[in-house]
């Protein structure tokens, strides 16, 4: 009797509001079904050839291709050039904390895309996470401006293309010494779309009134990693890079 009453009440709820737990559950399942399947582990195509040294084989050689985000041929303003010079002055003696944004999108660090109707989470091997909210919310109001390493991202789906809008990114080289020195006024717009089972095309356009004279456009793709079926994270507990005269050397092993 009690069960019948509960069912009747549920039905009334559904009829009156057009919503209800059963209906909501179906809608959510349908919302998931509309999303693309980007399961797996991915790596930026540009960095997929990174070897066991952690560097491309072409390092230090003439003609070595720079990362697009660090391309000297970009439309850098005088302030952008000045920041680059300052960056290089102390680079040899600085350690990275990870990749940060935007470099994590053009790095050899593998990453995953976890897609839900409300949010896409982009997380790399260093547990750097970008929360891309796709539930229709906008950025917080300017009075609540909160500048962080990965910025504030909102997203939307245009068919099977994910559009990401990111603002309030804190000085990228502060987290990773070889990152482009964009200001926290930079605006990043990305488009991601799977164009083949093992390929997600990626475009990023950056506008920064401080360091750029025109939008910087970067285009690449993520490809599946051939050798990884999981991401295993670990802490930086065996850091043997020690400064000696402004440059690092390798400390003896800890016994």
């Amino acid at each position: 009797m009690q069960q019948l009453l509960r069912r009747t009440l549920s039905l009334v709820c559904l009829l009156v509001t057009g919503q209800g737990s059963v209906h909501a559950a179906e809608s959510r399942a349908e919302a998931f079904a509309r999303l693309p399947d980007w399961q797996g582990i991915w790596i930026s195509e540009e960095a997929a050839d990174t070897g066991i040294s952690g560097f491309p084989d072409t390092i230090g050689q003439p003609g070595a291709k720079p990362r697009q985000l660090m391309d000297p041929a970009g439309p850098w303003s005088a302030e952008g050039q000045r920041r680059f010079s300052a960056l290089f002055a102390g680079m040899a003696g600085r350690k990275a904390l990870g990749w940060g944004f935007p470099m994590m999108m053009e790095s050899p660090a593998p990453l995953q895309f976890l897609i839900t109707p409300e949010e896409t989470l982009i997380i790399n091997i260093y547990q750097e996470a970008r929360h891309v909210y796709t539930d229709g919310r906008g950025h917080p109001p300017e009075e609540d401006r909160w500048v962080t390493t990965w910025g504030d991202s909102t997203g939307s789906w245009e068919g099977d293309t994910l559009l990401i809008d990111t603002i309030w990114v804190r000085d990228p080289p502060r987290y990773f010494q070889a990152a482009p020195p964009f200001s926290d006024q930079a605006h990043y717009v990305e488009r991601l779309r799977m164009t083949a089972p093992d390929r997600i095309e990626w475009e990023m356009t950056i506008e920064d009134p401080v360091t750029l004279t025109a939008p910087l456009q970067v285009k690449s793709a993520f490809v599946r990693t051939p050798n990884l079926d999981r991401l295993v994270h670990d802490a930086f507990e065996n850091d043997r890079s020690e400064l000696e005269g402004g440059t690092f050397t390798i400390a003896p092993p800890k016994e």
Partner: protein
Amino acid sequence: MRKTCLTLTLMLVAAAAPAHHSPAMFDTSQRLLLAGTVREFQWTNPHSYIQLLVKEANGEEVEWSLEMAAPTYLANNGWRPSTLKAGQQVQVTMSPLANGSKGGLVWDVTTSDGRKLGGNTKGGN
């Protein structure tokens, strides 16, 4: 001129884009071959290391600290924690530390019978 210098520096640094530190500590213009016995393989963050015992011309055994990428990048190149074992004889292609200490950056590791370690595990080594 200033723009040219900046461009050259950018080429060097940006092409490298390492996860942890700049490659400036290594003399990457040199690629040397080092043969020895693995004392220890450190599969660790932020870098992995091969502790290699190398016999010098005078017969003395010297330990080298050879730096590699973080484990994830090794794994992505087909390496696993078991790829190197203590006591294993290997040849390492490396760029030495610029300060002359017994250390370097590993480019390639082959076994004593000439087999290159790592590779695509899905496609077979």
